[in-house]
């Protein structure tokens, strides 16, 4: 039977512009209803949040420098209602600055604007009036010396033993404390726990077979492989709902290389944004090893919920040159690939602060011409209102 005629018949059925508008309006109304319902539910404080608040208050009273429960078994609960908290009086000033970890400036070589796409769930349309600022759970000096906070020795031990158990590694064959971090070597691999809350795991594939490979040629593949590897390693990572966080960079031969990763996606949009900012897991591999980096912020006490500026204001400030950056000035034609909202911190920062991160083309005078590619720099505009900010000088972390 010739189905061409059937296909022609069905092809003729198409939705109209009127249909499209009506459907989108209906979806928008449903979405608003859904968000309103969530907000109503969020207004009620669950009992467990109340109980944990008492616990943290007790810890804060006994240890005023920071409120970090360094035991890995008691994770800090983040109240998802923070994004709509009323703004308190007498909010303390927040010191904001950037630090560089090494030589050169942080830049991205892009073939097109979509190359900066990643897994950040933040959207311009989110209705946000205020955002929390937290004290950094660790502060180090310019020579990596821990000034305050960070995991205690006991916490480092507990963490390394926890991952050892999850990985079912055999007894460790060596243990080294490096710059107050802790590393153990096993016949199956290495576990390195940073005092700042991050964990690096190296797995030897010949002793601990990993099925999933990381040889993606497209973004979709990179996302699929990241999720598959997260699934395969879920006994180690313990994620409830892994979502891909993938980006691309170009090597010296201008070949696309994928950065594989995941984060633990949350149902609530604001919790989701927060989860993305505070804990990301990255994967890489070569023929012999698989590397897992669990980049997790140690979050100190909350300084308050600060009013924020709009994206439109942030753009304007950027155009006026009111930004923080370790990069040369942007190109005068203002080519912006992307703006996203992230929480910024380094080990030297006093606070974990929300920033608009702007990827903009760098002034061509500062970059080598690379045919078909553009070099984009990163420029930060603090999200919180400038009346609450004290700017530090951009400083450089000593590289030695």
């Amino acid at each position: 039977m010739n189905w061409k005629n059937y296909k022609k018949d069905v092809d003729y059925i198409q939705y109209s512009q009127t249909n499209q508008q009506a459907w989108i309006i209906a979806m928008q109304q449903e979405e608003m209803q859904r968000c309103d319902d969530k907000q109503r539910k969020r207004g009620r404080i669950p009992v467990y949040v109340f109980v944990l608040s008492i616990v943290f208050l007790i810890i804060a009273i006994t240890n005023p420098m920071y409120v970090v429960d360094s035991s890995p078994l008691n994770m800090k609960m983040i109240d998802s209602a923070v994004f709509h908290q009323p703004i308190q009086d007498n909010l303390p000033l927040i010191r904001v600055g950037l630090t560089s970890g090494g030589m050169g400036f942080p830049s991205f070589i892009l073939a097109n604007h979509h190359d900066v796409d990643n897994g950040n769930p933040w959207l311009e349309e989110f209705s946000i009036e205020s955002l929390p600022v937290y004290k950094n759970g660790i502060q180090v000096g310019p020579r990596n010396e821990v000034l305050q906070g960070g995991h205690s020795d006991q916490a480092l031990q507990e963490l390394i033993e926890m991952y050892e158990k999850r990985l079912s590694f055999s007894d460790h064959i060596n243990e080294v404390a490096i710059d107050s971090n802790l590393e153990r070597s096993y016949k199956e691999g290495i576990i390195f726990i940073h005092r700042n809350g991050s964990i690096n795991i190296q797995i030897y594939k010949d002793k601990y077979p990993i099925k999933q490979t990381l040889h993606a040629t497209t973004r979709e593949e990179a996302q699929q492989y990241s999720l598959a590897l997260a699934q395969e390693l879920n006994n180690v990572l313990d994620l409830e709902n892994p979502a891909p966080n993938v980006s691309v960079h170009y090597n010296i031969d201008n070949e696309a290389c994928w950065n594989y990763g995941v984060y633990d996606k949350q149902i609530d949009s604001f919790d989701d944004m927060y989860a993305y900012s505070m804990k990301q897991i990255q994967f890489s591999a070569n023929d012999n090893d698989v590397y897992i980096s669990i980049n997790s912020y140690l979050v100190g006490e909350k300084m308050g919920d600060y009013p924020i500026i709009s994206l439109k204001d942030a753009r304007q400030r950027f155009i006026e040159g009111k930004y923080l950056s370790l990069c040369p000035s942007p190109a005068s034609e203002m080519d912006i690939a992307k703006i996203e909202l992230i929480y910024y911190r380094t080990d030297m920062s006093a606070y974990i602060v929300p920033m608009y991160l702007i990827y903009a083309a760098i002034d061509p005078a500062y970059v080598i011409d690379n045919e078909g590619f553009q070099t984009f720099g990163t420029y930060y505009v603090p999200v919180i209102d400038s009346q609450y900010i004290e700017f530090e000088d951009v400083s450089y972390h000593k590289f030695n």
Partner: protein
Amino acid sequence: MRDKHEMERIVHTYGNLLLRYAMHHTVSLDQAQDIVQEILIRYIKKAPEFNNEQHERAWLLRVASNMIKDHRKSWWQTHTVILQDNLFEKQEDSYEYVLLPYVRKLPTKSRDAIFLYYYEELSIKEIAEIYHAKIMTVESWLYRGRKRLRKMLEGGKWNELEEL
């Protein structure tokens, strides 16, 4: 929160698929459009995280299938008799449907299977996954559907269609 771009993407990607699917089952174009709207609202309300577009499409088709089933059970459907299928009646300046009116007369499952197999070009396995059915079951839907179409279009009409 889903933004307008996301909603536009969903309509652009799946709007025609859902409308065409609904048009195999409804008595009027308005009804089909309403059903699509309900499906899209359900998407906003309940859609889980999808692994890929195939997963998303399969979910939408399942919802569409269930919604049409419910719709058929509704008071309006059981208490309304359509005197004549005017849905594809030839009008001036409009397209003349050749085969679709006959496909609409097939049993529901055969209708769906034919739409998804011949038009959407899904594999039998994919169709089976959408309906949680066995592969052989889907094959029998297709076989019976084709057999009935042949019977409906016996003789000259069938040959005419072959030549077109």
